[in-house]
């Protein structure tokens, strides 16, 4: 197992490298030069030139790239000009908020999606299956930002059960119950689409597995049907569901951008959108690379979980 983990870690290095290349190349497409963007339209040519030299933008592209990556590796993501603060500090602050939101949503989508998928498969064509299938179709079709807005309207404005937005109450908040009250709506809105996808694919895989011979063997042994479904069948189905969970983590991270805007959640998605609108390039670059790297790391975890579950994968 240790060797497998090491192998996966090593294989991630070229991917990370590729991510930095792609991000760097996209950013190099920007028309005009960043110095003008920073200094504004009325900057003198001398000032622009001085800033360009200061930022290293007068050097050839490949040199710029290696300087940037060299700094990244040392933990220097540069300085955000709009916030006048080190990019990495800002990213870490914001990412922790996103992690709370996206992490909760991910756990929700994995648990609810798998349970719904298994129930749906076990009661194929029954009432529960039809209800779940209908909910899934609705769930994967509704835009999460629209859903979030409707939830605010219903639960915060009309019913007044939950706060409208933010991560903590302005006054007197800050503890865990306060966080949970603020987290409930955005986490549910964010998890819904992913829950639908996980439920639907879990159902399909369960139906596939339930027809296999080893399920008949379990039944022939006298194993209780509950254990046949939730033990034998689900375990085998998880082999195909786990990679889907890895993909969904990416969708949850993506959806978090919208949800953070709708619910004013101080996460990294909102930071990125603000940074794009303000053309704060270093912050965008750093943020994208950071989140993509975390996603790569998460996918290694998924692969390891997969190998742990399925002894046939090893080596």
């Amino acid at each position, binding site marked *: 197992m240790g060797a497998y983990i090491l192998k996966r870690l090593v294989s991630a290095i070229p991917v990370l490298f590729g991510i930095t290349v792609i991000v760097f190349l996209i*950013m190099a497409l*920007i028309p005009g030069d960043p110095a003008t963007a920073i200094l504004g339209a009325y900057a003198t040519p001398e000032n622009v030139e001085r800033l360009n030299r200061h930022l290293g933008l007068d050097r050839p592209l490949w040199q710029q790239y290696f300087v940037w990556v060299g700094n990244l590796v040392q933990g220097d993501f540069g300085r955000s000009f709009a916030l006048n603060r080190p990019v990495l500090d800002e990213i870490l602050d914001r990412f922790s908020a996103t992690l709370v939101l996206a992490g909760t949503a991910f756990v929700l989508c994995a648990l609810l999606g798998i349970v719904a998928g298994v129930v749906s498969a076990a009661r194929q064509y029954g009432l529960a299956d039809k209800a779940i299938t209908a909910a899934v179709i609705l769930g994967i079709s509704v835009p999460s930002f629209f859903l979030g807005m*409707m939830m605010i309207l219903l639960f915060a404005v009309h019913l007044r059960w939950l706060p409208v937005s933010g991560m903590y109450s302005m006054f007197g908040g800050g503890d865990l119950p306060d966080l949970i009250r603020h987290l409930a709506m955005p986490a549910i809105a964010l998890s819904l689409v992913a829950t639908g996808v996980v439920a639907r694919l879990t159902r399909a895989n369960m139906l596939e597995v339930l*027809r296999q011979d*080893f399920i008949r063997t379990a039944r022939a042994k006298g194993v209780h049907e509950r254990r046949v479904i939730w033990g034998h069948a689900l375990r085998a189905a998880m082999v195909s569901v786990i990679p889907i969970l890895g993909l969904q983590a990416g*969708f949850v991270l993506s959806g978090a951008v919208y949800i953070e805007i709708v619910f004013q959640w101080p996460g990294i998605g909102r930071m990125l959108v603000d940074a794009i609108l303000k053309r704060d390039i270093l912050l965008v670059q750093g943020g994208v690379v950071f989140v993509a790297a975390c996603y790569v790391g998460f996918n290694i975890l998924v692969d390891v979980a997969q190998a742990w579950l399925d002894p046939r994968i090893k080596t």
Partner: protein
Amino acid sequence: MRLFLRLLFRNRLAGFGAVVLSVIVVLALVTPLLPLHPPNATDTANRFLRPLSEGHLLGTDHLGRDLLSRLLWGTRLSLAVGFAAAMIAAVIGATIGIVAGYAGGRTDNVTMRGVDMLMAFPYILLALAIVAALGPGLMNALIAVAVVNIPFFARNIRGVTVGLAHREFVDAARLSGMGHTRILLTEVLPNVVPVIVIAMSTTVGWMILETAGLSFLGLGSQPPQADLGSMLGEARGALITAPHTSIVPGVMILLIVMSINLLGDGVRDALDPRLRSGALARPMAATLVDRREPPPATPDDKSLLRIDGLRTEFRMGRRTAVAVGGVDLALAPGECVGLIGESGCGKSVAALSVMGLVASPPGVIAGGAVRLDGEDLVGAPYRRLRALRGNRVAYIFQDPLSTLHPLYTVGDQLAEAIRVHHPVSRGEAHARAVKLLEDVRIPNPASRAGAFPHELSGGMRQRVGIAMALANDPDIIIADEPTTALDVTVQAQVLKLLADLGRSRGLAILFITHDFGVVAQLCDRVAVMYAGRIVEEGPTAAVLTAPAHPYTARLIACVPELGGGRRRLEAIPGLPPAADDLPDGCAFAPRCAKVRPDCREGDVALEGTARKVRCLYPEPAERAAE
């Protein structure tokens, strides 16, 4: 194509999706012709009018603009952008995929590495980075969404192309001297187009959603032009005071995406042959029972297991196939009975019916009784069946690789079989599992208990299967072709093991096979099955030396003899009848060399006591003995 459309519309949801989508698309197409307010005409005196106001069917927004007009124009824009993005992504992605898949080798490797790299991003990060570089705007959002979806198409299409690149017709084109470009365009592309269309139908909904999302964030369409996403984004400020300005565009996005998804699912399902045949149904915990007649009365005898008039059908839509059409069979304690017949004659289904293990749907037990010590198990509650399964009646199945759970160690699977019926501790169960492995003569049982099925050889796996059947000291073992998947030497070992264990433990064995050699070696009695019914039954030696039914005689004549050549090997002409189309009278009549007109009329009964035969003109004992 006609069939496809009919299937598509038989799926009511897909039909609903198609109707909703067509209405929306038609509305979007005719929008410029409709008598609407100009979408961007502001009228600040009439801000936030509610729906159904005078002159404004859906009300007005924060600048007093007519919502209905803006909705239709926005829908037009969103649909156009979504479809354009899908087209661009499909064309570029498919090109990359086709070239990579066709070229293979290094081109393929490098390209697909790049594609994988793009897929390492959560999609929105890439889209955001592109918009950040190009600047906000609808065109740039379109480009971003298209680029983000290219890897998906490239990957799918490459997979299909790799499969095609080495097919005969492509090789033939290459040999005839066609250029690569021409081969790609005339031979490969036409075969890939359907895949592209399906991939598009499943992703276009996503792309509409994604562009709407970017516009919602203010990174897509810029005011005053509005697509559905930016309408929603602008309305967000007034969510609480004028919710209808948000609900109107939001519901429209929902409708569009949902109708596309429903339609896409319908298209995919209509193209999936497995769904058409109903093969995706999940078997239930126990076979359904639908007995139209009360079970036959209990005969007064001392059989351990008695099958009376068992009838098992497969009901698929309007078709009904009778797999087992009235089987009677008895098993005395300690007795080994062989059930022999060709593939598809219903012997396995009959054996699985005993404990309700026939996959259902489509299987249904439609008549008869299965009595264990006089207790009828057909229609017994699931709880009762479960208590007996593996406890008093255990099964050994054919292919131990697919019948053992691939993700549990064999020790765990054995221990589970014990713990299901006996309240023993984990440690105790494990110790017994190791003992069982030892009983079936597996070397190093303690360490083998920790092995997964794929780490064992075929013979070892089947020994595990036997150990599992023995776990609870059953009275009866039903062995469903347990040696068919093994090679000959291993087969002999496994048979010997079964015979020894059967004798030493006093087990009754019902042995299902198509191999007379196995029957001769193992069984006290044998029953021959044809087209779902038993045609002959008797002591093994008697049946083998003097078969009475023409079918048995022909079947025995098919068995090659070692060192033989003295006897003519004769295949039986024709095929067994289809289970959903059985002939009247004797089912073997169409293939029988001795058929007479009355064979085809009326049911032929199974007659006799110790030797039973279902034939009007059984073989005379002397002639068959030759």
